[in-house]
């Protein structure tokens, strides 16, 4: 299972990187979103082993629990990625309104002669 997920993570990273490298603003943002998915999944696989033990709820009275720490970290990371994505989206929106283009090739910025 870990290997499968890891390969999936690799695939997601590939997709994310490819999207990041494109010229379109929206694709770039989607790339960051996919990358955050990949990072979360990766963090998940780094615990004490997937599917080993029951959910980390003491009410379940199980013998062993899965690693709860990565879960907490991922939760934090998810919220942060949400915040970042939201900001990035609005930034893209504002940029488009201001410049009239979403082509990153046209958005070069400083052109000191």
């Amino acid at each position: 299972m870990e290997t499968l997920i890891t390969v999936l993570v690799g695939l997601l990273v590939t997709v994310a990187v490819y999207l990041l490298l494109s010229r379109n603003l929206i694709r770039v943002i989607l790339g960051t979103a996919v990358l955050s998915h990949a990072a979360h999944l990766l963090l998940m696989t780094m615990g004490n082993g997937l599917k080993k033990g029951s959910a980390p709820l003491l009410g379940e009275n199980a013998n062993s629990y899965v690693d709860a720490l990565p879960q907490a970290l991922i939760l934090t990371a998810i919220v942060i990625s949400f915040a970042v994505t939201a900001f990035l989206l609005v930034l893209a929106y504002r940029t488009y309104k201001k410049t009239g283009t979403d082509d990153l090739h046209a958005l070069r910025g400083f052109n000191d002669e």
Partner: protein
Amino acid sequence: MTITLSIFIPFLAAIFIPFIYKRIQNRHIGWFVIIVPIALFIFLASFIPSIANGSTYMHTIRWIDSAGIHFATYLDGLSLIFALLITGVGSLVILYSIYYLSERESLGRFYVYLLLFMGAMLGVVLSDNLMMLYVFWELTSISSFLLIAFWYHRKKSRYGAQKSMLITVSGGIAMLAGFIMLQSLTGSFSVREIVATIGQYTDEPLFLWAMLLVLLGAFTKSAQFPFHIWLPDAMEAPTPVSAYLHSATMVKAGIYLVARFTPIFGGEAVWFYTVSGVGLFTLLVGSFNAVKQTDLKALLAYSTVSQLGLVMSLFGLGSVALQHGYSPDSVIYTQATFAALFHLINHSTFKGALFMVVGIVDHELGTRDIRRLGGLMAFMPITFTIALIGSFSMAGLPPFNGFLSKEMFFEALVNARNLEVFSTGTVGTLFLVVAWIASVFTFVYSMIIVFQTFFGEFHPERVEKPSSEASFGMLVAPSVLAIFVVGIFFFPNVVGNYLLRPAMTAIYPSFAGAEGLVPHIKAWHGFNPALWMTIGVIILGTILYKLIKYWRGVYTIAPLRWNLDTAFNAGLTWLEGGSHFITRMYMKGYLKDYLVYIFTFFIVAVGGSILWTGSYSFDFTDNSPIAINEFLIVLAMAGAALAMIFAKSRMTAIILNGVLGYSIALLFVVFRAPDLALTQTVVETVTTALFLLCFYFLPEWKKERSARKTKIMNGIIALSAGTIVTVLALAVQGNKMFESISVYFEDAYLLAGGKNIVNTILGDFRAFDTMLEVVVLFIAGIGVFTLIKLKTGKEDKDIEDQ
């Protein structure tokens, strides 16, 4: 203590000058300033007797104790000579400037700079601690920079200032590196301590580097070839400055440094060859170039370059004496050093006088172009006399002090030919020949100064102002110097015994009191080779001067025309252009390029190190089993992810992203993470809503128009990045080295009273993370608000998109 104070007095004065300047209107501010150097001169002069008796003065104030950097002053014979020159010439120059600069100039500024310089220069020669020396060393560069660009609205002034600053500061930084190396070797920044212990380190490779770097500093400051190019351009400074900094004092700082370090590095072959070789070559180049100058100040600048070379080479020759320590035989080589010190003093007198003369000419006639001048003798008799004295002294003619030191120079060279050390032989002869040729040119340009300016016919229409003799005040300073020029010729041994003897002892501590260390200077010493050489110089020089218009064409010959100035300018231009070109090449402003750099670096660094260190040992034994349905879901996710790349519309891409997000929620369920699954679902939905909200306003995306090649490149980069992440993750999973700390949290109920471990971690164990994460969210929320609401767009006249 008082010596330390003497360094500070000019600085203190510099602070007060602007205030005084604001108060007084009717009197020239210079009269207040001049008190400082005169007082200091008198104060320092009072040390002459005791120093001559061999005492030295040392005083230390702790500064940066932990780094061994102290404010340590040390007064011995060597520093005394320089200190006296600084304050003495300084007094005269300020006196001269009072008449030279009109009150319309911003005199407050001028004198502040000048006092800064004076203090810095005193600091250089009186410091014992190398770092202190460096502090003041750079300060001289800076004050010189400010003085050169005193008339900063002139382009040439700025150019000259920039050039001198760049060259001298660069040299200074090199010197700093050398100093630090010395400290690393010996463990001390104190010159005296280094002198005492350096013997045991001379074989270290660092020693050689330190020597070369220190020399670099000295050469740049003293305008030695090929760093001499800044000096002629520095002549844009007001003439008093040129007289003071660029002939008498600052340029001698390098000389001082060489003298000061002779006990440390002297006796080394590299030191000998570098110092004397560079010195002689500078002498030749300087004198040769001086002849072709038409601007009197430029001529003097080149002459200064050549004279500095002369002194430098003498120090190089004199360092030989230290090769095997003290022996009666090697004393003879110290005479070169003696000559160097002597010429140093002489040069300050006659060159100072000459600069002032040129200043007078410039001041009275509005030009200093030799081609426009002539016949000034008639109405500027005093000026003429001073010029005559100065030039003849420079040319090495009796009865002026230049003659004495020139003779000693030749003598030292003749001695050097007999050197048994460093397998000189032919090189010694070469030195002699070079020096002699250079002297001939020196003679020629000295004659040019006197004869082309003061003899011949006066053409009033060629000058810009009506001409008359300068005011009395302006003549005082050069006259005093001229008197010294003559006086020293007649009483050279006063200087020799009182000033030079302690200095020689300072340079050659092991020779202290040796017979012949301080020779008796005689004007007439029989027909020895040196005199014959002088006579030869006069004869050939006269001939060359007379025939100058026939051989002037030499200067237009190509190799001689390529000068270092153009090289320096071209270098700077090339540097800027090249930088621009290179920076443009990789800083294109495209996000994509930057990302490519980052990923490339990632692939090379991380991927490379994975391959290199072979950290790809996998271990799949610990894997949990895969259920078919999980496999199918992963397959669906993979399909959705891949489809995102090829999605033709943004909405499809958003939907696919949603599929990914929801499937991840399912994976979280499979991995027993209910909280995550909940969060992931909600966040995914809200994100999707946001995507929809924003994308409505953006245009439908176009097909990527990139070339096929770019796409393939992107694909390769993406694939490698993905592969690296996977490989590394697999390696990590196969190499779990420790149990996670998270077992601890399974006691959550006991510890924190919660049964949901994840929630207790978030709310208690790692509540700080949660708190900050809330802050992050909050910032994003308010940030979005700000981003949308705050529009200062109307003031867009701004300087954007240039």
